[in-house]
């Protein structure tokens, strides 16, 4: 079976596993990826929600701090950011929107913007989001990322409004969250894996583990003929021939498949 088909099956299975709450299975685990417990079918908790709880308004509930970090750490050390590429339901969603985003990418303006030197710095936004909105504002003023999270809007707000018509009214964060949600949609339809690249706080938690994970995508530079096909197919926009345990690599394996020299491989180390 082709690797990308395997990955698709795996993503679909994980999507259903994340939604076993529809069958009544609610657990006390945290997802190691980005998904919202407010989804009526959710099985587990968003790790960000637990982290926000741990420091909310100058409190320190160490269990809620260590517990999600340990879960992320376990999967991070084992597979690195492969979780983003193989398990995350929002990754699956972006896989669906990727075709449109790739068409947009071929436009000259998009290419120019993509090649802009500021682009690589934009990728640090997700770390800023994690530190500022999950920890800092939660600790200092009680404003949490969850209040404006577009994924909560997608899998929580809209399904709940549909399932419970007339039972809820928008709160004061709703208009801001709606604008952010619309921007989220624009982002994932215009930039392939735009959410993962620039904004995902869970991706920011997982990214450093790429440096130490047991699984990695390894490039054999001696075999490289500089055709650049790998970089063109990479949904995260990585300069694949020159990467070594890149923080952005979601180990989707597209470069592995596309290399005409078979010089890119998954490697256990």
């Amino acid at each position, binding site marked *: 079976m082709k690797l990308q088909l395997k990955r698709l099956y795996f993503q679909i299975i994980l999507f259903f596993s994340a939604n076993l709450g529809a069958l009544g299975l609610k657990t*006390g685990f945290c997802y190691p990826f980005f998904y919202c417990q*407010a989804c009526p079918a959710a099985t587990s908790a968003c790790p960000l929600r637990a982290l926000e709880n741990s420091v909310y308004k100058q409190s320190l509930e160490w269990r*809620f701090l*260590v517990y999600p970090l340990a879960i992320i*750490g376990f999967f991070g050390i084992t597979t690195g950011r492969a979780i983003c590429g193989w398990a995350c339901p929002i990754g699956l969603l972006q896989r669906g929107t990727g075709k449109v985003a790739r068409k947009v990418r071929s436009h000259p303006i998009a290419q120019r913007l993509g090649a802009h030197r500021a682009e690589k710095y934009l990728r640090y936004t997700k770390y800023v989001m994690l530190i500022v909105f999950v920890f800092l504002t939660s600790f200092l003023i009680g404003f*949490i990322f969850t209040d404006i999270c577009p994924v909560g809007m997608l899998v*929580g*707000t809209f399904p709940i409004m549909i399932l419970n018509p*007339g*039972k809820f009214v928008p709160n004061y964060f709703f208009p801001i969250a709606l604008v952010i949600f619309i921007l989220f949609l624009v982002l994932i339809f215009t930039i392939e894996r735009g959410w993962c690249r620039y904004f995902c706080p869970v991706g920011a938690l997982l990214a450093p583990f790429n440096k130490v994970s047991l699984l990695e995508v390894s490039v054999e530079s001696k075999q490289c003929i500089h055709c650049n096909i790998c970089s063109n197919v990479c949904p995260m926009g990585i300069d694949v021939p020159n990467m070594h345990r890149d923080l952005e690599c979601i180990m989707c394996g597209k470069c592995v498949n596309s290399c005409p020299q078979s010089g890119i491989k998954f490697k256990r180390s």
Partner: protein
Amino acid sequence: MKKTIAIKIVALLAVSFVLVGLFVSTSAYEETKARIVEVLCLSCIKLEPKTSQEFTFDTEDNASHPYYVTENLTKGPVFLHYSEDVCAGCEVMFPIVKQLFNIEFGKQDMFSDTVTFGNTNITYIYINLDHTTDALEESFPLYDKDDVGGLPMFTIVTLGYDHGIVRPYYTTLYGTLNVPTDEQRASVLQEILTESLELYSQNGAGYHSH
């Protein structure tokens, strides 16, 4: 190379050890389930429950809820019925409330009971300010959310979700409820009780009385 792999395996074992330790010796799993997964996260959905009365978390001067409220909240919502001897409105509402909960007691009694409403338990506490204890009387200004200071007063304490923490959430109704007939008064109380039960069912799993 071997050293690097060894370090990674040690790190993986350490994280696994921490995880197992958290599962075995702490309530992290249960608390995550009860406080995050099973509770409808209003922050996540950016919505508020639509209620006919305004519920609030804030008591007068942010005072703590009395123990007889916080403890009984583990069983279901708490209905506090304030009254006094000389009070025309209290006379009107007294039989309506008794009929609503199918209970019998005298107007000057101290009375509390677990009553059933819509297949759910509600703790009903009758507080006649002329014949009560200090502890019960002290709750009257606490729940007088509109600073009316008048009787009869009805406080329904249920549970609400406040940025990840499930806390007592209450509303207070006053007088003869601004409607002209007994049927309408009963209907207003039924409606607010139904809403409070719904809020309780959304949040009950995440509540700890301490």
